[in-house]
């Protein structure tokens, strides 16, 4: 039982880490909670489904869907968030705007595809490969490997490339970044495109393993937000660790506690972190001025 729960936790953790990574990148550069990320995530799955329905092979459908989702993320920034930023909207107004967007996009998906469960799994269900005392399917191995690879790539991108450094500069101080000639709007646009692409990869991987419903994005986003806060905002290893923590807590929790409390465990962890370590495992402590 325990090895299987660990494997399940690792797989869930891989997915949450990817969501947390995308969400965290966007949060650290723009400083607001982009809740519509959950809807963007769901769009990734449904784009793949639509391409697949129109007769494409999955190998063609997946890259198309990732690109499409990435464009959607960029369009949200250009169409909604950038005008709001230019009007000087506070992060709370942006948060409320993103909640609105979330609902609109999710309802649009329901409108077009219906509320019922869809699947892009093909082929017959086979027994997983044995791994110690647990079983793991090839697609689940892919989830873990792709997740780890993307984490590494993003880490390299943030540390070594020019755009990554610009992202960190904007995250650190948008004013100062503008002073030294970084166009923060372009950097933010790139962040939205990158974050949305990561969400699309995560959702496509999980859809290959299980099924999709329009509500799925909300759930993944919640877990992603908890992972970001637990791991520390703006830290890529933090997002990975936070995702693993959430996945493991969920799956090891059900070992002793009835399954319906799985999500409650996660929210208790969230509040615990917010109260006692709001900067997360690896984030830096920031203190508001005090008297």
């Amino acid at each position: 039982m325990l090895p299987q729960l660990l494997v399940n936790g690792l797989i869930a953790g891989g997915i949450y880490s990817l969501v947390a990574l995308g969400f965290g990148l966007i949060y650290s550069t723009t400083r607001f909670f982009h809740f519509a990320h959950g809807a963007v995530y769901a769009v990734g799955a449904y784009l793949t489904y639509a391409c697949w329905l129109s007769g494409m092979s999955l190998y063609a459908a997946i890259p198309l869907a990732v690109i499409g989702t990435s464009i959607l993320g960029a369009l949200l920034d250009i169409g909604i968030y950038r005008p709001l930023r230019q009007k000087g909207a506070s992060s709370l107004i942006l948060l409320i705007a993103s909640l609105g967007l979330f609902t609109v996009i999710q309802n649009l998906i329901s409108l077009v595809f219906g509320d019922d469960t869809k699947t892009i799994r093909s082929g017959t269900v086979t027994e997983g490969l044995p791994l110690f005392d647990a079983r793991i399917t090839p697609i689940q191995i892919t989830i873990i490997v792709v997740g780890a690879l993307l984490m590494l790539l993003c880490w390299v991108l943030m540390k070594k490339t020019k755009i990554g450094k610009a992202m960190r500069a904007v995250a650190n101080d948008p004013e100062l970044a503008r002073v030294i000639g970084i166009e923060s709007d372009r950097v933010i646009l790139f962040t939205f495109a990158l974050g949305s692409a990561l969400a699309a990869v995560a959702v496509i991987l999980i859809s290959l393993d299980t099924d999709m419903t329009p509500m799925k994005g909300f759930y993944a986003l919640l877990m992603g937000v908890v992972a970001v806060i637990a791991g520390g905002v703006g830290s890529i290893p933090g997002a990975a660790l936070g995702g693993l923590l959430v996945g493991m807590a969920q799956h090891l929790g059900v070992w002793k506690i009835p399954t319906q409390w799985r999500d409650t465990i996660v929210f208790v962890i969230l509040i615990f972190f917010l109260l006692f370590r709001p900067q997360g495992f690896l984030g830096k402590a920031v203190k508001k001025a005090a008297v």
Partner: protein
Amino acid sequence: MDYLLHILILIAIYSILVISLDLIAGYTGLLSIAHAAFYGIGAYATALLSLHFQTNFLINMIFGAVGAAALGVIVAFPSLRIHDDYFVIATFGFQMIVYSIFNNWIGLTRGPLGIPGIPVASLFGFNIDNHWKFLILAVLFAGLSYLFVRKLVNSPYGRVLKAIREDEIFAQSLGKNVNSYKIQVFVIGGALASIAGNLYAHYVTFIDPTSFTILESMSSHFDGDHRRRGQLERAGGGSGGFGRPAGGAAVRRTSEQRRGESATDILWKPPSLDDALPAAGTYGRIQSSKALNE
């Protein structure tokens, strides 16, 4: 006619909810999305007490308010340490936990099946058993909460709350115990919201967890349009007025009833800076021009 009364009763109940949230979010500036949790505690306390112990309306109300006040202390606690959007996320966590207790503690709450057969309210041996009587009761409580909160925010106590909203550190530097005020506001606001839950449970006589979701918390914000309160008060120098919370509740209730769909479908449009909602926004504009003319 009954239908019209039904809508009026719901408006009165939701007005209490919005007025109490206004105290927390509008006057003190603590943007909480856990309000439906307080509302739900009031409703569940009412349902469970009146079914298991045959207690009457007022006793249910007192116990519900005590429960919600206790939750208020817990929800307020993160606001002492974290601010702004982190606080929103913390309240979000509380909302989800309380909702999952309603939904998952099957032994106590019957979970998604809900609790049917809640007796009608009775006050001093007088049964509130038709729409007219209930409307009078609901309006009475809505009026009382309105007067109470108005009295509160126009007092020196209310001025401290507004100071906390505008600049917490400044309020602290004047020797105000900001932490204690924040907790008190959540206790008062939570207890008031539980009264709305109590009325709702006695009125509908059936409750289930779907009435107390995060969406309920958020639409209360849209009804009240609390974000504007600070702006308006700064512009006009006076109080932002209570018309808007009640008006927003009225617009949403009626539109929801008329079109038979969720309020969020109608009102959840991406808000711009100028108008969060067409409905509450128009109302807000009237208010803001009034405020500016003063």
